[in-house]
Each structure stands twice: as C-alpha cells, then as structure tokens.
C-alpha cells in the first residue's frame, strides 16, 4: 500500500469511528429523552396539578405541593441572586476591569460554577439549618442563590464588556456621571445578553437536587412558609422514584417530564434571544 493509500484508509477508519461514536452518543441520549417523554406524558393528568403529596396507594396524590414549592424556592433565589449577580458583574466590567482583584473574582466564580453542589448544601446545612434547628425553604433558597450568583455575575461581566467603549465615552462627553452611564447606556446596550444569562442561570438552578436534600429537605404537603421545610420538584422526584411504589414512581416521571420541559424551554428561549440579537 502506498503512503497515500495508507493515509486515506486511516482517514476512512477514523471518520467511520467518529460518526459511529456520534451516533452512539446520540442514541443513548435519544433513549433517555424518549423514556422521559413516554413515562412522563402518560403519568400527567389533572390530578398531578390538583393534589398535594399523599402516602403511596392513595388516589388523591399529586405534585401541587412540589410544583408550588419549587416555584417559590426558585423565584426567591432568583429575586436575590439576579440583582446581586448583575451588580457584581457590573463591578468586574465597569470598575475592576482587568485589575488583579477583578481577575481573581472572575477565576473563583468560574471554579464555583463547576464545583459540587452537594458541598454547598452541606455548607448551608452548617450555617443555616443547624442554627435554625430545622430544615427550611430559606436554607434551600440560600443554597441555590450561592450557586446562581457566580453564573449571573460572569455572564453579566461578559455581556457588559461587549458594549463598545465609544458608547460610554459619548455619554461621558455629554456630562453624565458614571452610574448613569452604566444604568442608562451600558445596561441597555447589554439588555438581551443579560436576560439570556438570567434565563440560563435559572435553568441551571431549577434542576438542582443535591443542594436541597438537606436544606429545604421536603414536605408532602402544600406549604408556602419558607421558614419550614419545603417541597421541591427535584427532591420529590428523587424520593418518589427511589421508592418501591409504582404510583409514586409514576408521579416521579411526571415530575421529571415537567421539570425537563421547563428547563429546556428556558434554554430554547435563551438561545432564540441570542439569535435575534446576532441578527441585528
């Protein structure tokens, strides 16, 4: 075989292997998606939304408590995490810029974004649950907020840096003080990017289970009191799916389906926003 023929053969082999692995990867993922949809859709009925949790075997059993609990926890974490993240990102982009402190904050935030979320759960257990004496929705909120802030902070930092400096200079040239330049001009210019960052941050945090396991813990009943343990979709999924009861498992799949659709929805909206921005 000539050298060229050998190279072409190697090339063919590698191409086939790569395409094969792509298909293997995609096949597994399609498998997971399909069972999610099949099991999820078949388990969804009006009862899921009408009833709170109940012991296995009960007819009137649903996810209302978990859905509302999840909503409360996520929206509270968002309400705290987003403003803090945006302001922190503002510091990095507009004041700290490339200073040593700013870069250290960026690096640590990046690392935090990949750090194990269960460790954060244990931290919150120590500083919130133990002093309070019991699990609570607030503990769950704090855990999720800690996870969310670095994400929002970094995307805000990136998006603000994309705003051209001449835009800022033009506002300064009109005699605007710095905070107005930031709020009126820079935020507006980065509006879409920041919003996308927020959506993706929410999507990421909505899927977390581990940090809630021993902070907000769980509750089978509907409660809106953040001072008490609170149900969440993710922990409920975990409990129900690992139980030996079929009806609970079925409800678990319904929860999985609802959660995935919510998260995928946020991701897709985020991507659409990016695309419309690029199209301008």
């Amino acid at each position, binding site marked *: 075989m000539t050298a060229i023929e050998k190279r072409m053969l190697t090339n063919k082999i590698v191409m086939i292997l790569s395409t094969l692995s792509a298909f293997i990867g995609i096949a597994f993922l399609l*498998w997971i998606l399909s069972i999610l949809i099949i099991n999820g859709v078949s388990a969804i009925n009006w009862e899921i939304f009408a009833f709170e949790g109940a012991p296995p075997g009960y007819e009137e059993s649903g996810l209302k408590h978990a859905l509302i609990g999840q909503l409360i926890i996520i929206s509270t974490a968002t309400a705290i995490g987003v403003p803090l993240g945006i302001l922190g990102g503002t510091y990095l982009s507009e004041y700290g810029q490339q200073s040593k402190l700013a870069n250290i904050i960026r*690096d640590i935030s990046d690392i935090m974004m990949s750090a194990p979320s269960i460790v954060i759960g244990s931290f919150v257990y120590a500083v919130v649950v133990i002093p309070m004496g019991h699990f609570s929705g607030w503990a769950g909120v704090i855990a999720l907020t800690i996870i969310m802030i670095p994400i929002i902070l970094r995307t805000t930092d990136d998006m603000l840096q994309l705003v051209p400096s001449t835009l800022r200079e033009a506002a300064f040239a009109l005699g605007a003080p710095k905070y107005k330049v930031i709020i009126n001009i820079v935020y507006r210019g980065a509006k879409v990017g920041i919003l996308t960052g927020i959506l993706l941050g929410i999507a990421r945090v909505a899927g977390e289970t581990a940090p809630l396991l021993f902070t907000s813990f769980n509750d089978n009943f509907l409660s809106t009191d953040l001072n008490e343990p609170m149900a969440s979709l993710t922990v409920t999924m975990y409990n129900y799916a690992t139980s030996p009861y079929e009806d609970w498992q079925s409800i678990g799949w319904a929860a999985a389906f609802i959660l995935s659709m919510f998260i*995928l929805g946020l991701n897709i909206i985020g991507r659409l926003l990016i695309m419309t921005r690029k199209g301008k």
Partner: protein
Amino acid sequence: MSNIIDKVFEHSTRIIAFSVLLIVAWIFTVLFQNSLDSMQAFGFDFITDTKWAPNLEKFGALPAIMGSVISTFLAMVLAVPVAIGVAIFLSEIAPEKLKSPIGVSIELLAAIPSVIYGMWGLFYFVPIIRDIFGGLGIGMLTAGIVLAIMILPFMAAVTRDAMDTTPDILKESAYALGGTKWDVIKDIIIPYAKAGIIGSMILALGRAIGETMAVTFVMGNVHKISLDITAPATSIPVTLANEFTEADTELYFSSLFELSFILLLISFTIISIAKFYFLRKTRRA
C-alpha cells in the same frame, strides 16, 4: 449629589463582587471547622480506613473516596473517546446544515438535570446490567456508565468548542497540501487545540467527581471496596446524599463534613488545574 450616588454605586458593586471571594472562603472555613471533631478522632486514618460503621462510631472514608475515584475513572474511560468522536464529527464531518441542530441538541442535552439521568439509569439501565452480570444491577459499573453518559454532552460540547478555535486558514493550508481530514485533525487541530481539549477533559472530570444525583440512584451506598465492579459501592457525594439526614451523633456529622471538605478540595484542585494550566485562552468553565 451625583458624586455621592456615584460613590455609593461603585462601592456597592465592589462589595458584592468581593463577597463572592468571602463566601468561598467561608465555605472552606465552615467545612473545615465542622470536620475538626472527625479529624481529631481519626487523624490520617480517616482516609485509609475501610470501615465505615456509624453505630460503632468508626468512620473510615476510603471506600467512599475510592468509589469516587473509580467511578469517575470509569466514566472518563468510557466518555472521553466517544466525546472526542462526537466533537470530531461536529467539528469536521457533519455537513454545515446539520452542525447547528446537532450541536444545539447536544448542548440542550447537557442542560437536562442529572437527577433524570439517575432515574433513567435506575429504571432502564440497572435491569440490563442485572441481566448481563447478575446480582443487583446496582453498583460501581452501572454508576460509571450512567456518569459517563451524563458528562458526555458537556464534554463533547467543550471539546468541539476547543477544536473550533483552530483558524480556518491553518486547516486550509493543510488541505491545500493534500491532507485528508484525519491528517488535518491529527496534525493541525489537535496540536493547536491541545490545551483546550485536555483542559475540557479535566474540567469534565472535575464536574464528574462531584456529581451526586446521576449516581445516587444506581450506586447502592455500600461502604465496601470490592474487586467486583458490578457490586454495590459508594462515593463521597452518594454518602453525603444518603446519610446527611440520617446522622445522629456529632462524630457522624463531623465525618460527613470531613468527607464534604475532602470533596471540595479535590474538585477545586482539579478544576483549578484545568483552568490555569490548560484553559488560559478560553474562559468557559
């Protein structure tokens, strides 16, 4: 007036940004403090003892640590080749029209919460392992495979990103000399993107080792090191997830905190290595 508002605004943003560092330092401190009881009771043996017996108040973390290491190693062995294959496919093979939809699908799959991978593993993969190997079907092997599938989308996406940074003109120069696709990948793309590719792998490793929900469903939480990789085992996150709510003594809690602290140190180190040695150019972590 605006001067005051300016100063207040600037200082608020600075304080908030700085508090990120404070929180991280606080996390390390709290975990360390809460591990002290266990550290004083067991010393270095904590990491080497294999006996984890809550009712005897003896806590040896080796099974959990080994479990984390082995399951992650297994996951990497399975996921890395496939991820590279997918990345090559996305970056060089797929026709332009398919690149975007498939690429986006992979990224969306990376967004699926890990708890769902765990559920799938429990209901659909465990029976298969049971059929092939016998036993419970729950154990290190199953956990390794589920973990591999879970980090696959992330790994493939970041590896593809790393490969995409190769400038087109570099690739074109190689093609112009008569190179095949594999030549270009082997001689141009991989050397150019080497740092990014390795860094992405290590980053995925850092994430995998801290992964809880994908493996909690299928590992079993048995504190035993066994030569049989299909036997039930445990890892640090699995132990924490299962036992934090069951712990009843100070020492038990302290041992769990020490496990958590060890996990934090390990993953922080791995992710930092990925970030500072390999991913200097990109900033996506």
